[in-house]
């Protein structure tokens, strides 16, 4: 439940408030950045993701550590499956 997945921000999703496109193990998905301070993250930054939301900004080493931890817990595939499952880019208005 408290799985947190590291990912790197690629760019801000255009036309969709608070969404960033994030690369997680070569999977590109939208992640909501509304739980971070405005302007806290930019493309290239690493974040910890939980149920589709960025929980905190981390550095690259922490991202690698977190991925290592998920692997050691046997939950890395589950984490990627979760991220693949995010499908909440809103239909264009």
């Amino acid at each position, binding site marked *: 439940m408290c799985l947190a997945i590291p990912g790197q921000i690629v760019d801000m999703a255009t036309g969709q408030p608070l969404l960033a496109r994030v690369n997680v193990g070569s999977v590109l998905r939208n992640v*909501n950045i509304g739980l971070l301070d405005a302007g806290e993250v930019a493309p290239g930054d690493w974040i910890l993701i939980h*149920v589709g939301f960025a929980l905190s900004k*981390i550095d690259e080493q922490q991202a690698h550590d977190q991925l290592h931890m998920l692997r050691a817990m046997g939950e890395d595939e589950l984490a990627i499956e979760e991220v693949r499952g*995010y499908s909440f880019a809103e239909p264009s208005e």
Partner: protein
Amino acid sequence: MKYVDEFRDPEVIRGVVREIARTVDPQRRYRIMEVCGGHTHSIYRHGLRDVLPENVELIHGPGCPVCVLPTGRVDDGLTIAGRDDTILTCFGDMMRVPGTKGTPLELKARGADIRMVYSPLDALRLAQENPGKHVCFFSIGFETTAPSTALTILRAHALGLRNFSVFCNHVTIVPAMRAILDSPDMRIDGFVGPGHVSSITGCRPYEFIARDYLKPVVVSGFEPLDILEGILMILRQLNAGESKVENQYKRIVPWEGNVPALKAMAQVFELRPYFEWRGLGFISQSALSIRAAFAAYDAERVFDTPGVRVTDPRGAQCGEVLKGVLKPAQCKLFGTECNPEHPIGALMVSSEGACAAHYRYAMHAVEA
């Protein structure tokens, strides 16, 4: 040390294990509760109990959201799924939690429209795509997950969606810790504080435990090294007769928490006067409900949920295990009637539940 070799910095881990062995007073027994289910999973998976001295006992705490959800709430959620015009959505963990008439997965097989989602925002999108249906999200989780639900409700409000609601079962960890401290049959010397929950709440909410109950709390990360360091920091405090809140997981947990997340929670949620926890009973101010300003998104106001109390299945001793009074294998149903394939109690469902973790790792180790 069989399991420890697999990890990063095995030498550092061995050093901490040796330091723990040097630190413990052989005349004394230490009972330490890891509050979070993620810690429970990591402890079992990595065989950490085997590297601790015999007189350091780990008690598995209530920090597994599906494990503490009472059957009555599962039934209430499934009532919503029984309506023709409704799609019920929930996280994968919830799909196998038994209600009185079966699990969400079983009800789905019988024709109810129940769908697994990975994010509350997926449920929101379903509502946008299905304007003729009502989409309800069965939300569970501690403070790690509650802010995400809050932002999803705020988004639904901003979009003016009329066919989306949340069946809110979010709980907060600190009142449960207080209930455990107040319980006469539990003697806990210190707590390994939760990692990702604390990244939202910060460390301040635990200060009363150190101040009023004189118990150490060390917020820790999830890697074996993190957990062992956390335990060592608790042992040192206990030996010195100290009780304070310390943060072993500084790389992720700010002392003040995640302010935007706390603001979103405060905007959308308020504390319920009381809420039932499986095994722990009713705990005052331990759960969140949706504020009246967002009533249109509150499934408990939109639908008529029966709210019936349901006792635990006959013979299952989830409550005692959850409080640490019984070990998982001491439950009468453990491993026989109740197993990960056919869970009877919720502790056997989630990988963070003490029974599922014990079945998967400890039993396997015995057989190997």
